């Protein structure tokens, strides 16, 4: 942080107050947007703290980009409110919101040099010339672009252009920076590299970032919290670990964890655990304690990596290994469970200890890794 100390004081001069103020940076209450009969965003609500990296994750049509556009002001919500640093901006024009935006298509001004692009938002704010020069220089240095100031955007690679766009969005220290799939146009290797770079800059400068992506890995790598969106609804807004280990809906369990789903019925409760009778195999499975009544139909969700192969009588079910694929450090196995034509149960076990095709195995899982969802919910 010390090396960026030079920048921080000037923020107070420009933005009115430092972007790194503690507390709520942004809150969204019951935001709704419809296009004709289609509900793009349905009553989305969330609070984002200053310095937090939040990702809206979902497939196309999930409402993640629409939500971001409403926060930016490019799209007007039907109802709901958006507050930035305590100020209601719901009906304000984009230029009055003092937010930063990084676009997927970079959108650098082609007639300006890199330096002038980054200086643009500062000149709008009446920052003195010397300070502009200094701050643009510092920002370009953070992004590893020193010496590129005199170039035109078209002389840079895609990755460099997106770095310039990032500089341009953070040089004036907006309280929140919005990013709409900023790495979507780059190749895999560059994407991985920039994910780390953006995350590092965000942490070092204490930026509040809202990031939109459909890439689960990207979301997991970068985010403090992820809002998983589907059909305009926020399914779950939590830390990556919570989403992964304690999914609140079958969709989240499937989307992030690629979980196996098994139908069953609550059998009984003990002090710590809930016992579930599986429909197909008839086996008894121990799960974390749940409040569902006995006899309730449930869906059991366990991620492939959390299932273990064991001796044939020790598991909650048994089956025959049909496929075993070696993928580097892991073996991916597909197990045909006895007693029914259920889909293959997917396992991921460390290579070397993995089962081989044709082997008869029992399947077990730690009760803590077993998630239960009331059965009538769709998967």
């Amino acid at each position: 942080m010390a090396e960026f100390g030079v920048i921080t004081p000037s923020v107070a001069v420009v933005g009115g107050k430092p972007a790194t103020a503690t507390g709520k940076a942004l809150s969204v209450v019951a935001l709704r947007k419809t296009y004709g009969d289609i509900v793009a965003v349905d009553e989305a609500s969330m609070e984002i703290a200053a310095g937090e990296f939040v990702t809206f994750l979902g497939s196309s049509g999930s409402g993640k980009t629409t939500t971001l556009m409403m926060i930016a002001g490019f799209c007007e919500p039907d109802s709901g409110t958006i507050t930035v640093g305590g100020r209601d901006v719901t009906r304000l024009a984009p230029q009055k919101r003092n937010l930063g935006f990084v676009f997927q298509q970079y959108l650098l001004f082609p007639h300006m040099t890199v330096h002038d692009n980054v200086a643009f938002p500062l000149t709008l704010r009446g920052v003195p010339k010397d300070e502009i020069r200094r701050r643009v220089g510092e920002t370009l240095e953070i992004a590893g672009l020193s010496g590129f100031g005199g170039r035109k955007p078209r002389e840079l690679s895609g990755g460099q252009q997106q770095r310039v766009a990032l500089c341009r969005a953070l040089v004036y220290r907006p309280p929140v920076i919005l990013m709409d799939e900023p790495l979507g146009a780059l190749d895999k290797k560059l994407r991985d590299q920039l994910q780390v770079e953006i995350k590092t800059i965000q942490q070092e400068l204490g930026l509040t970032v809202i990031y939109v992506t459909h890439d689960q890995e990207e979301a997991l790598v970068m985010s403090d919290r992820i809002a998983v969106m589907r059909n305009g609804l926020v399914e779950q807004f939590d830390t990556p670990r919570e989403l992964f280990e304690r999914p609140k809906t079958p969709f989240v369990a499937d989307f992030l964890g690629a979980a196996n789903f098994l139908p069953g019925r609550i059998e009984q409760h003990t002090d710590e655990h809930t016992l579930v009778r599986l429909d197909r195999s008839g086996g008894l499975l121990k799960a974390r304690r749940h409040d569902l009544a006995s006899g309730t139909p449930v869906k059991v969700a366990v991620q492939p990596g959390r299932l273990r192969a064991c001796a044939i009588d020790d598991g909650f079910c048994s089956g025959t290994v049909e496929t075993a694929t070696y993928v580097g450090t892991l073996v991916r196995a597909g197990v045909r469970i006895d007693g029914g034509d259920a889909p293959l149960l997917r396992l991921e076990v460390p290579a070397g200890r993995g089962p081989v095709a044709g082997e008869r195995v029992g399947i077990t899982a730690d009760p803590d890794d077993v998630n239960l969802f009331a059965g009538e919910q769709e998967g």
Partner: protein
Amino acid sequence: MAALTAAPARPRKLLASRKTRVGILYALPVVVYLLVLFVYPIISTLFLSLKNADGSLTLHWYVDALTGVNLSVLITTLRISAETALLSLVFGFILANAISRLRPLWAGLAMLIVVVPHFISALVRTYGWIILLGDKGLVNETLAWAPGAPYHLLYNELGVVIGTTSMMLPYTVLLLYGVMRGVDRGLLAAAASMGAGRVTIFRRVYLPLVAPGLASAGLLSFILSLGYYITPALMGGPNQTMIATLINQQVTKENQWNGAAAQGVLLLLLTLAGLLLVKLISSLGASAKKRSAS
């Protein structure tokens, strides 16, 4: 070994020279065409403008063209052309800007409306304007209630500029529309996201991006106006005589080919000067930008 490596070089060289010869053959018709129809007439006009009655060389015709009435005609020509260029640029900008914001289908229709009138002969359109703008024309009839009516909209500079501007408008609209369509609207949104208001976005993002189009559209209508004949001749008065009219008079009425040639050469030089000026301004702008960035 040496012979082996040298061998492939020879046929390639042969091929190259053959290629060049074929190239010349292809270019020949164009070269002949240009020589006969452009270079020869221009050079002979140049000689004509430098020749005395007895065949000796003289600058007499140029002195003649740049003094007295001829000079004032030249200045009038420059002034009317500049006014036309400016006005067609302003109206063209407004029109093209509005059209570029329309959906493609409507934009296509709007462009058709701009262009179609120009399928009709310029002479017919000029008479159309004369009917509209006359003392008893549509414009003055509808404005009969206004103080000072009827307005004199014909046979003066206003009439000429109205006419020439309407003739030049499709060129500027077509040129500007193409440039404006090429501007990524996302850039304007990006500027807004950083806090730029509409005026700032227009001045610092939109205008610089369409500036090259403005320069070429303005220059085009200026150059076309310089040599324009029908509209100024029909819609102007004696004080609006333009250089093309003067050349026509010298040839058809006074049989004064040498003087006409000198004025023709002057017209050509003015056009070249205009081109050079735009080139100079745009390169100056570019280098100024470069300096401010470093």
